[in-house]
């Protein structure tokens, strides 16, 4: 199920503004890759190019190549909707659908995409909620509104919603930034379990978190405000945090920056 991502020569624009320039990297299947870097260097932008969500923003434009195994996501005739089914996404702020119950939120991706039998859906919903470590907390209130959950529960609900459609890759944009340490831990554990099945890419501002959950880490930086963000280096997490090959990385990680 998990797939390899191979990016080469990728530029992303907002209108005429070049937000990230010439990014090339490989994301291994069944692994966790963390993106770190200062605010505004284009981590979110890059993440959103990986499931063609970047072009949803008005003026958003991409050139370059993103290979998912052997298919170029930006090749001719590729349907962005199909891409997004393969590459799921969890956002920084929990965003459950306010009109839907907990159950309907998890089932949303499947229901909105086609017909499923009730029993089939029941199974998938239970499996996904268990996968997101949420089942025990919500199993008695599946029919209550999803927005009635706590922030951490809502974020795990969003993860359950994302994994219910069984993507190959899961992108997470600062999934823990609005959460308390306990919910954060729950989600970090969850990431550890999910990587058995999915390729995971996570953006984080928390160095410890990157060190704890990821196998590989990519450091992004930008020369100055208004300049495009660039990939400085990507390596095994251990190496990045102990002995990075670029000075800027070491400065950023140790807090000597700017």
């Amino acid at each position: 199920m998990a797939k390899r991502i191979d990016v080469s020569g990728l530029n992303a624009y907002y209108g005429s503004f070049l937000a990230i320039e010439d990014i090339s990297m490989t994301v291994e299947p069944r692994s966790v890759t963390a993106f770190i870097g200062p605010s505004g260097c284009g981590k979110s932008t890059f993440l959103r190019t990986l499931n063609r969500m970047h072009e949803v923003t008005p003026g958003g434009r991409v050139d370059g190549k993103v290979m998912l195994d052997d298919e170029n996501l930006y090749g001719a005739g590729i349907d962005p909707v199909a891409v997004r089914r393969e590459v799921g996404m969890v956002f920084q702020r929990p965003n459950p659908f306010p009109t839907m119950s907990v159950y309907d939120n998890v089932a949303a991706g499947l229901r909105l995409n086609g017909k499923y039998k009730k029993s089939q859906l029941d199974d998938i919903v239970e499996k996904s909620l268990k996968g997101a470590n949420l089942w025990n907390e919500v199993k008695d209130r599946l029919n209550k509104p999803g927005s009635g959950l706590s922030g951490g529960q809502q974020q795990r609900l969003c993860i359950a919603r994302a994994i219910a459609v069984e993507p190959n890759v899961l992108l997470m944009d600062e999934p823990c930034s609005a959460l308390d340490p306990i919910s954060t831990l729950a989600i970090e554990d969850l990431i550890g379990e999910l990587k058995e099945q999915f390729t995971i890419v996570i953006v984080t501002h928390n160095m410890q978190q990157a060190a704890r959950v990821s196998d590989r880490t990519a450091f992004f930086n930008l020369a100055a405000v208004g300049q495009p963000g660039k990939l400085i280096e990507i390596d095994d997490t251990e190496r990045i945090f102990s002995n990075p090959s670029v000075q800027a990385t070491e400065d950023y990680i140790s807090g000597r920056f700017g």
Partner: protein
Amino acid sequence: MSNATLSAKRSSLRGATLPKWFPWAVAAGSLALGYGISAAAGLDSDIQWALIAAVLFVVGSYAVSAKIEGSRQAKDRTATSLVWVAFLLAVTPLASLLWETVERGVKVLDVFFLTHSMGVVADAEPGGGIYHAMLGTLEQVGLAALISVPVGVLTAIYLVEYGRGRLAKAVTFFVDVMTGIPSIVAGLFILSLWVLILKMGPSGFAGSLALSILMIPVVVRSTEEMLKLVPNELREASLALGVPKWRTILKVVLPTSIGGIITGVMLAIARITGETAPVLLLVWGTDFINANPFQDPQESLPMYIYLQFGAGSDASHDRAWAAALTLIAFIMILNLVARGIARWKAPKTGR
């Protein structure tokens, strides 16, 4: 020592305060004074002494409060009393209008009135009813809504979800222009198109066409506002699940905003229900029951009121007021229904 600082702090935080009944007392005082002054000066209009009392109230409460409580509280009180005065000024005409309509309208308003037409009743005689007018209003407004709601909602969806560039700007501009079209002009437009060019006779449907010209921009505007309120994050969440855009709009955006959209539609309906001009031009009116909105003149409530009032007899005046009461009740019920639906459909937050 700590006790001393505490009490010192307290007194610095707690200034002199006027009692709770103070505004009421000032209000009563200024009412009495206002009445007295105008009686003495020989002013006999209700408005005159009410205005004197209002001014006395605002000035009086400011003066007393500035003396005792200090200037900040006095300003606060002035703002509060200005708000109250404005509120009363706004509500008084409304309340008196309702009162007047109910008082005069209930005289002949009964089941017979609601279930009979004017077919065999001369305008000067008592009797008769508004059945034909209610039927006409319901059909004309219903048809107008049937045309305007899909057109309006789809236009708003286009503008908010798809519209970029010139076409969207042009559509927005035309909607703005349409909002300002006087109803008589809408009526004349349909008259020239439907009756003079297409050679169709007067009918309820012709009236509905003119009413939709008035209703569409209102529906577009209110729906647009509601759609804009839907957070972008929800759209992105749905798109990121691999849901196509049109399904995202249908299953996520519209359900999230449906309460507000329905409220907007109901308000638009309420607005066109009272329109008289297009109906006069295009539906003509009749004293008989005509259930077919596509052929021959029909009656409608506003036109009935207009004609009965113009007939000039006591009996016809009574009927006009009763019809006005029915119209107000109808619009009020629509508004209540809209609120009910909005509350029922609002995104749920409770546990």
